[in-house]
């Protein structure tokens, strides 16, 4: 069984990914990478990643968030983060990645920011 479930929703031209589970070395990171690559392949390059259901993330998972961010940027798109848990927020602060990611705690505000 996979450590993570990634559900997909649409809001206009923005794809919202609801992540539930662990984004860690191995399956969790690979599942995220596969999903992002597929979306980009389909021309969906406005992505809002909802991390509210992510109970655990490690350095590999943080690295996968960064890889997703750079892959989306490379395709001329935008990736933003929604609903960081306190733990993820702490890890992004330690790594100084809060300065890189556009982060929201309200879905409506996040969606508006894409326009």
């Amino acid at each position, binding site marked *: 069984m996979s450590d993570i479930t990634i559900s997909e929703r649409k809001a206009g031209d923005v794809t919202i990914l609801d992540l539930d589970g662990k984004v*860690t*070395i*191995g399956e969790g990171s690979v599942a995220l990478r596969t999903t992002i690559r597929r979306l980009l392949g389909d021309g969906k390059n406005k992505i809002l990643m909802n991390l509210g259901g992510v109970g655990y993330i*490690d*350095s*590999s998972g*943080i*690295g*996968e968030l*960064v*890889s997703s*961010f*750079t892959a989306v940027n490379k395709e001329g798109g935008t990736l933003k983060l929604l609903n960081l848990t306190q*733990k993820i927020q702490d*890890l992004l602060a*330690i*790594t*100084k*990645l809060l*300065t*890189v990611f556009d982060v929201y705690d309200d879905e409506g505000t996040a969606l508006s920011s894409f326009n």
Partner: protein
Amino acid sequence: MSETKELRLPSRIESVDEAASQAETFVKDNGLGDDFVSAIDLAVRESVANAVKHGNKFDPEKEVEVTFLRSPKGVEIVVRDFGTGFDPEALPDPTDPANLLKANGRGILFMRSFMDEVQWSSHDGGGMVVRMRKSGGEG
């Protein structure tokens, strides 16, 4: 109070979960709180992942040795691999603006951030040893 638990794990990714699970059990059995569980879980995951990937390079002939030690001063974790070793001070700083968008290189930063002491040394019998300590939880 002092208690020791030793593990010998194969050089595969699944060993990361196994070590973390054993660490959680060890910490809880020793009556330590959630802050301890969270910090040690992350430190064990990162150090065992490093040992499997960068130390042993997934070599099935090599194991990762993990020791948990509970002492009156706190918890100590020792992780040994059988690789060729590295200089932790020579690694790039992942918080340097030039490195922020790199996919790798943050594990050691997490270990240092959540544990009170982290030290590396070469083992006389080969491989690298990382020794990590978190203070508190007087037993």
